[in-house]
């Protein structure tokens, strides 16, 4: 009890006790004295005794005041200084002035504070340094993974994805189903992965000094369209005996395998297929040679066989050489190149020169070629044309025609004669291209080159190059997000176990897709349509900025100007966008088995559900509504618009994103995450709890509406 009183109060009590003792002791002393001396002394004793008593009490009071001021107060200041110093801010410092009556205590505390401060500073510096190093390594790892030419997937033992890189995305991303904490079985046919895992974990169990940790895997994508080949390695716990996850590094070998199969077929055809016709020829020839005195009829028949078979053989050879050309040139290392990148290289080569000027026209296109040799060839040809025709300005333009991308070089002047062009192409390039000639370069690209005049009166030189092998159209979800690094991994998922019943699981643990739609109006049953659909995923309480879904939709009807005022989406913007029948199934894959969250979810869900039948998908996911949750958390009579909630929670929506489906989805997701924290404080922990309060709010609101 007494310990709880403040120091000041205890010291006060102590002095108060002394002050009380003064009249008591003095009074009783004088009482005895009066008894001995007699009643005549009483007035004197009272007068002097009283005076002495008051003086003494005054003295005690004065000492107390001084003591309080110079000792107790400084001790209190020092205590609170030391507390601040220890718990929050080491730079707080200690003032010695108030503690000057405390002897060496204040200077000692000050010295300690200084020592603590410098220790803390050093520690902070070390932490900063270490953090910087980790950050650097992390960035390096991210860069390496991102730009690695192989796809990388890291999964836990439940086959949930913890990490993927850009290449994996390119190889496996067809419908938007790749994502953190999604099952790998959405992407790959799993039996061969399961088998490799079984094999490797089996190896671990057998007591072996050096078990294998990786195995070769070949499997197809879940849609069966691509074959991937790669390596599967186990991630082991610190005991080196239990696997906690696995890494698959892989590449798309579909084309390689097809090419190999084709090569095999051609070789087989060349060897086996020629046996029979050659046998026929040889047998007939030997018959003719061995039987000189054959009758004319017989000879004529054998000659027929010879002519027929030679004919047949020539045709076979022709076919074979055609096929052979296709595969034999397929092996020059080439990659998909963006025409503007390549043509800019050409332009830069003439930058320093006054005599030749190059311009790039047209829209850039993707093509498949060896960038360096094409740049060298183009540069040389431009120089030669300039020399020959004294043209000074050249326009370069990529054009897509049928199955080729034409690089057109255009100038005002004469055409180049074919013989001239041939002689240029026969000259070899120096060591940068290992002495290749222009002809070699063209051969590698299965290309021919020619010069022709076109309707605009200009001379053209046309170089057809193969089309890009891969689809380079932008992915449906925005990889770059709205700033910041995309998050490709979450190793916390390694320990994520799925054994809880869904509704009993903590709200923080669930995977959510927070989404928003922009529409032509408010009444889906009156023919209003979705024109934009966006979503963001929340996994492990984190918004995955690398996995946005954001897609404009062609509604197939006019967009009223009144709605364009809100979302700024015009008819021109959606005219070349896919219809909802393409977008909704993709979004369905994107959502997977996540909980769907929206601000005023009933509205958005109504739009989605109107389209379910025509798109062949059903959204039967659990749904949460941030409006209802807000009504529960805050006063239900307050406003719950997204703007109000964002302001209340300090979530900033950049002006350019407000009223875009993606911007509102991100804002709703941010608000939702903060709500989860608040709900926790109110005892709402599980998904079932959240649904219960939502239902209560629906009930409450419908009652309100009745009055």
């Amino acid at each position: 009890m007494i310990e709880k009183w403040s120091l000041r109060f205890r010291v006060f009590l102590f002095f108060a006790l002394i002050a009380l003792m003064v009249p008591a002791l003095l009074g009783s002393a004088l009482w005895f004295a009066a008894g001995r001396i007699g009643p005549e002394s009483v007035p004197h004793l009272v007068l002097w005794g009283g005076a002495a008593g008051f003086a003494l009490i005054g003295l005690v009071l004065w000492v107390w005041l001084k003591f309080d001021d110079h000792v107790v107060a400084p001790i209190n200041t020092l205590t609170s200084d030391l507390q601040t110093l220890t718990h929050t801010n080491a730079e707080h410092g200690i003032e010695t002035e108030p503690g000057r009556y405390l002897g060496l205590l204040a200077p000692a505390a000050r010295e300690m504070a200084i020592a603590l401060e410098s220790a803390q500073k050093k520690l902070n510096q070390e932490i900063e340094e270490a953090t910087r190093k980790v950050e650097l390594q992390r960035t390096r790892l991210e860069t390496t993974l991102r730009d690695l030419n192989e796809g990388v997937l890291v999964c836990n033992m439940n086959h949930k994805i913890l990490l993927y890189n850009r290449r994996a995305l390119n190889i496996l991303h067809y419908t938007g189903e790749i994502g953190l904490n999604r099952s790998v079985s959405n992407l790959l046919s799993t039996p061969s992965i399961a088998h490799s895992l079984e094999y490797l974990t089996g190896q671990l169990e057998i007591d072996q000094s050096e078990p294998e940790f990786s195995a070769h895997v070949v499997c197809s994508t879940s849609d069966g369209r691509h074959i991937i080949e790669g390596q599967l390695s186990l991630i082991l716990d610190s005991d080196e005996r239990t696997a906690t996850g696995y890494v698959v590094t892989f590449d798309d070998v579909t084309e390689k395998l097809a090419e190999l199969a084709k090569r095999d077929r051609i070789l087989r055809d060349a060897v086996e297929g020629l046996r029979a016709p050659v046998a026929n020829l040889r047998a007939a020839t030997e018959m003719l040679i061995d039987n000189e005195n054959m009758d004319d009829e017989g000879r004529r028949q054998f000659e027929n066989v010879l002519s027929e078979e030679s004919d047949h053989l020539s045709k076979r050879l022709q076919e074979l050489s055609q096929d052979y050309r296709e595969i034999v040139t397929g092996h020059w290392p080439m990659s998909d190149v963006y025409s503007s990148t390549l043509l800019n290289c050409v332009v830069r080569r003439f930058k320093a020169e006054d005599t030749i000027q190059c311009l790039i026209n047209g829209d850039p296109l993707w093509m498949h070629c060896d960038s360096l040799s094409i740049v060298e060839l183009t540069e040389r040809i431009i120089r030669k044309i300039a020399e020959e025709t004294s043209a000074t300005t050249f326009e370069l333009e990529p054009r897509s025609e049928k199955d080729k991308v034409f690089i057109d070089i255009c100038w005002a002047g004469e055409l180049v004669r074919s013989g001239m062009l041939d002689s240029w192409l026969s000259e070899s390039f120096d060591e940068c291209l290992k002495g290749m000639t222009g002809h070699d370069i063209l051969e590698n690209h299965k290309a021919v080159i020619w010069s022709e005049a076109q309707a605009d009166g200009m001379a053209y030189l046309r170089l057809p190059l193969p089309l890009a092998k891969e689809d380079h159209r932008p992915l449906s979800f925005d990889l770059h997000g709205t700033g910041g690094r995309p998050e490709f991994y979450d190793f916390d998922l390694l320990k994520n176990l799925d054994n809880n019943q869904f509704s009993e699981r903590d709200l923080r643990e669930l995977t959510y897709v927070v989404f928003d739609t922009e529409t032509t109006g408010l009444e889906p049953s009156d023919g209003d349509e979705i024109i934009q659909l966006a979503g963001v995923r929340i996994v492990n309480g984190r918004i995955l900025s690398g996995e946005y879904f954001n897609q404009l939709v062609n509604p197939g009807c006019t967009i009223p100007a009144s709605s364009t005022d809100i979302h700024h989406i015009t008819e021109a913007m959606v005219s070349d966008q896919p219809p909802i029948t393409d977008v909704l199934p993709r979004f369905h894959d994107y959502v997977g088995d996540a909980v769907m969250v929206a601000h005023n979810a009933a509205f958005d869900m109504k739009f989605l559900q109107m389209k379910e039948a025509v798109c062949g998908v059903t959204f039967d996911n659990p749904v949460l509504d941030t409006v209802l949750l807000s009504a529960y958390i805050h006063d239900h009579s307050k406003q719950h618009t997204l703007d109000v909630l964002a302001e209340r929670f300090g979530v900033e929506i950049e002006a350019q994103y407000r009223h875009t489906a993606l911007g509102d989805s991100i804002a709703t997701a941010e608000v939702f995450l903060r709500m989860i924290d608040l709900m926790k404080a109110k005892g709402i922990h599980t998904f079932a709890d959240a649904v219960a309060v939502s239902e209560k709010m629906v009930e409450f609101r419908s009652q309100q509406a009745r009055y």
Partner: protein
Amino acid sequence: MSKKILIVDDEPNIVFSVEFLMKRSGYEVVSAADGEQAMQLLADEVPDLMILDVMMPRKNGFEVCAEVRNDQRLSDLPILMLSAKGRDAEIKKGLSLGADAYITKPFSTHELVEKVNQLLQRRSEEE
């Protein structure tokens, strides 16, 4: 009496040459253009030797070979396989299915005649 040889091949040009070759070597020749036709001919009459192509429509040489070996009446008919399939595995397959010799196309006509003579001689020795 001259020995009878059945030539089975779907390419008339090779049948023509081999037929000429065999006749010149003093054999009587019948020919079939595919496996089924060959089996029909074999049902009527058993020749002294069969020259059998492998890749043929309807019934291929391997099937014919296996059927012949399973037929008691035909089981010791010498079979010479003549095939454009020249891999070791295929040669082994032909021989295991019961062919007595396997010659890959293209072949030397001298070698073919020699092999035919050899097989016929061995058979008559066995008898």
